């Protein structure tokens, strides 16, 4: 998990893999103000300041401890028309799916409407 010492430049989003199916999930702001998970990278909550990043880090720690997700970390993004886009190509692929199979993964819309599995 990212700490302030390893935190990427802002703005940033929090991503992780869902425990049950390994699918990539993104922290999202819920209607009641709490944090939750979405499978749609376009809906990921973007932290633009330290306070928001600290909040995402705290959520990651809690969710890892609750065994809901694995491998949670902050990723620096650019803000595009369709939502945040990771700056690094590795994380971009992680939000899309295999580049040789556009029919698979989030780029094909697979499962992105669902929330974290329960």
């Amino acid at each position, binding site marked *: 998990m990212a700490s302030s010492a390893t935190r990427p430049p802002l703005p940033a989003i929090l991503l992780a893999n869902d*425990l049950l199916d*390994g699918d990539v999930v993104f922290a999202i702001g819920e209607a009641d103000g709490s944090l939750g998970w979405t499978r749609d990278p376009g809906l990921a909550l973007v932290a633009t300041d330290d306070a928001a990043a600290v909040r995402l880090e705290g959520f990651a720690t809690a969710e890892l401890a609750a065994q809901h997700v694995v491998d949670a970390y902050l990723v620096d993004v650019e803000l595009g028309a369709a939502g945040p886009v990771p700056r*690094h*190509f590795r994380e971009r692929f992680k939000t899309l799916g*295999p580049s*040789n199979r556009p029919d698979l993964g989030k780029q094909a819309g697979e499962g992105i409407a669902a929330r974290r599995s329960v």
Partner: protein
Amino acid sequence: MYRYDEFDERFVRERVGQFRDQVARRLDGSLTEDEFKPLRLKNGVYLQLHAYMLRIAIPYGTLSARQLRQLALIGERYDRGYGHFTTRQNLQFNWPQLRDVPAILDLLADVEMHCIQTSGNCIRNVTADHFAGVAQDEIEDPRAVCELIRQWSTAHPEFSYLPRKFKIAATGAQHDRAVIKAHDIGIRILKHPQSGEIGYEISVGGGLGRTPMIGKVVRDFLPKTDLLAYLEAVMRVYNLEGRRDNKYKARVKILVHEIGTDEFRRRVEAEFAKLDGPSVNADPEELARIESYFTPPAYQSLPEDSQALAVAKAANPDFARWVDTNLTPHRVPGYSAVTISLKPVGLAPGDATSEQMRLVADLAERYSFDELRVTHAQNLVLPHVRKDDLFAIWQALVPVGLATANLGLITDIIACPGLDYCALATARSIPIAQAIAQRFADVERQASIGELNIKISGCINACGHHHVGHIGVLGLEKRGIESYQITLGGEATENASIGEILGPGLPAEEVPNAIEAIVGVYERHRHDGERFIETVKRVGLVPFKTAFKELADAVA
């Protein structure tokens, strides 16, 4: 083929039960990820970029039709309808859900398969020459010894927590098709030059990865009966003295390199002398039992040449090209070993759909004594095909996209999954392979270039064997973009060698141009009938580096 005995069956079933319990405890929160990770890895479950990945062992690359059909079923029921054959002769599914893995393992156990020791710091799945038992240059089928090692090494209490993973490969032929010199232990079956007795040459300390090394021969001739005791001696020396302080220096190749081959050999021999050989070595009866599973099938007595084949070839140029490219001579007259290429131009090397797997299973059952092989080059083999049946097989392969005629050619590219799937990768591999294959898609051009092995890895771990490719491509990250380093002159055979870097890394879109430039140098320098690698060895790297520099300078 080997069939499980009661012990094998019970052991595998018990492991499935144990893992089912471990998954349940992970999902109910009783086990943390830190606690669960080593357990899932022991059962072949990785977490990759987009999902979990399940790696299934295919011991020494041999499968039955029933087993391949089961893999097809798993792909369809629990994955996305395809699987990926790897350079370790394994199969990987890219999208399983964790909660489904115990059910998948049950389906595997139903057909005598498992995922045990496909990960972790243990002795991994033993690999072998994919033409074992059929190659004309073979002294003895290596699969019996592979099976013996599988049984000896499975859950071996002393070697379950080695300093690092440990890979063993074996060949029984003069020509090495199993890349034994790039394995921790390489076993070559040979005849004693004086007595004619069959035994083993043992190499240790080969490996690719961030520190590529060619294995060193530590025993010129080991009597067959001493195999397990000698391997145990090697493993003990490594287990005791291999470095555990630095995972990047923990492979046995580093130990051999640091203390020297002679000293390593001395220590192994000292340990070997201390061991109580008879208590370690296989009981001759057990060895005979294992060997009995690898006796040749009931071949027909046939003439060497097939009239039906000649007629079909004359009438169909595409079939003729496939026959001339994808067949390997068989030791039995009238038969051939058929390589089914999983490298159709434009698709991912090594991928096969469930539909394709079923078709190949049907062909294996009908035409190849119910047997097929997975090659380290990510293709499939029907090892025992009557030449009379080749046309029927080809006709069945064409509609499902499996009749690509490119065995050993420039489009028969090895590529790891790379950054399209792998969490360790630093760059993509598959699109590079696709782009090169598309550039050289013309079949006449491929035939004109001849044998040329391109091997692509998406990180320095070298799952794509780039170090031993005639042309190797290594994907790295350089200043925030994917960058590809090209090596030249590697070889994966009995003349194994590590390729040398040609120059600075290139962006992805320039890689096909670089390959074109290298091929151009070859075409200008080659003598009549000279293979690519022979020209490289004869003329050296200088002309290739010159051509590469022109390209790299233009890009820079």
